[in-house]
């Protein structure tokens, strides 16, 4: 029971310390919402609801990626730089409590973003879906935070606290664009379309669109396999880096 208390407190305090950082909360919640309202609802090319549905999926993906990558990368890089992580490692706290706390924070933010965008879609975009589709999409998006949390973890373990925010942005924004999260992937130049499969965010969005029969028509197994392989490789890399970090840090 005592160990459980550590996990709970760790998660709770990670969440509130992030929540008290307006520089993190506001962009994390406002950008996806505003972008969706702008490009998904207001500037709908044909005024069709299918555009609003399509963009709901892609901007939700865009939304959940951000907090996962940023919270992991920036707070771990900063905890390392400030010595806070060292102090925790010397305490009896299990490292998993620290990492799961960050994961929980990412999921809470993902949930907020999903609720915000789904509400906006239903109210302003007149998007109507089956309950099973809303629910399936929400679950997929929550599960979909994992590979991006792992990217953030890897960056947080390798980058300095000064470099982390810039590098995450440098990865996050182009990756979102190249995966067709801002504009439908079909509107990208041909050669970029052909490279879209490189990005995990492309496959996550295609899975979401598949739920609504709006995807590019590639096999389900392709998307799942690539996301799974990406996550596995990232996990192994993180373990490797973490072992080096705890083993022989100067």
């Amino acid at each position, binding site marked *: 029971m*005592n160990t459980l*208390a*550590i996990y709970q*407190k*760790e998660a709770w*305090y990670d969440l*509130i*310390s992030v929540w*008290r*950082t307006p520089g993190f909360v506001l962009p994390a919640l406002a950008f996806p919402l505003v972008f969706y309202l702008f490009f998904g609802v207001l500037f709908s090319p044909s005024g069709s609801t299918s555009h609003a549905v399509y963009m709901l999926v892609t901007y939700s993906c865009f939304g959940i990626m951000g907090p996962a990558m940023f919270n992991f990368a920036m*707070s771990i890089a900063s*905890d390392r*730089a*400030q*010595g*806070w992580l*060292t*102090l925790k*490692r*010397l*305490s*009896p*706290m*299990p490292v998993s409590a620290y990492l799961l706390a960050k994961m929980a924070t990412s999921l809470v933010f993902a949930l907020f973003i999903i609720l915000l965008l789904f509400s906006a879609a239903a109210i302003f975009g007149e998007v109507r879906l089956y309950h099973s589709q809303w629910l399936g999409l929400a679950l997929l998006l929550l599960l979909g935070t994992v590979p991006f949390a792992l990217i953030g973890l890897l960056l947080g373990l390798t980058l300095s606290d000064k470099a982390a925010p810039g590098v995450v942005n440098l990865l996050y924004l182009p990756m979102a664009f190249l995966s067709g999260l801002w504009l439908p992937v079909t509107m990208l130049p041909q050669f970029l379309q052909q490279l879209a499969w490189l990005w995990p965010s492309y496959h996550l969005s295609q899975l979401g669109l598949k739920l609504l029969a709006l995807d590019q028509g590639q096999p389900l197994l392709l998307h799942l396999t690539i996301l799974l392989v990406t996550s596995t490789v990232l996990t192994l890399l993180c373990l490797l880096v973490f072992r080096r970090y*705890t*083993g*022989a*840090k*100067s």
Partner: protein
Amino acid sequence: MKPQTEAVLRVCSLDKAFAGKRVLNNIDLSLTAGEVLCILGPNGAGKTTLISAILGLIAADAGEIHLLGQLQQGAERSVALRQQLGVMLQIGSLPATLTVAEQCDLFASYYPAGYRAPELVALAGLEDHAKQRFGRLSGGQKQRLLFALALAGKPRLLFLDEPTLGMDVEARRNLWQQIHQLQQQGVSIVLTTHYLEEAEQLADRIMVLHQGKFIADGSPGELKALTRYKLVQCCSALSDAALLALPGVLQLNRQQDGVTMHSSHAEQTVRALLSQDPGVSQLEVRQVALEQAFLQLTGDAAAAQAGADNQEQVA
């Protein structure tokens, strides 16, 4: 089964090099239960590296480390062991947006048998600031919080790396008081510092670390005897022979911009100097840093001189 004499910490032949440079050189040390050991040395002597190697933050190249009777393998430290250790490191910041009470609550949860959160706030003496965020505390308050967090598990063995760095005089004396209390409760403490006064106040035993090697080991009284020498520095028209003949002068070094004399009776030396050479200028009297006093004793005069040239003034 000899709890009284069992070493709570034992380090044998510890070596560590970074990029070919030897930072720890054949270090041996041992700490008995209830003892307060001060590791004294200037910045860069290897104090933090030594603590880091003992705690498993870095892997030593060679040597053995026994913590609370257990031989440690590599850089792993078991949870059971970590529950009995307390550590205060030189760290930049805790998460700036959490309050004092929240940090204490979090750290108290790590140690089921330790202090409760309100007790930790009281130990830090921050009851009036319990709802204040870490980022808004003063430097001294931050140090007090970190000290209290080190005690969260009611540790048997406590490591304090430069605990009073950045504290004002009053805060420093308060912390010394608390360390004395812990000592009376039988907590074993390893404390690093570059303040001789701090080591004298707190330690049962002082070990002087210089360039990765222990150059002295003794009680504060024994070591204090070695620092009665002072450095008298000046620009004088007198010859070396005349200066050496001044009362108390033991040794003389001439530099470009003046001479430095080691004196056993600095006041008499200065009085005689002023009467023989009224034109003396840039007169300065300084305490000899402890490690330099030792280097002179061990005959390592060249190193002592190199050290004296960039020695910091001791208050």
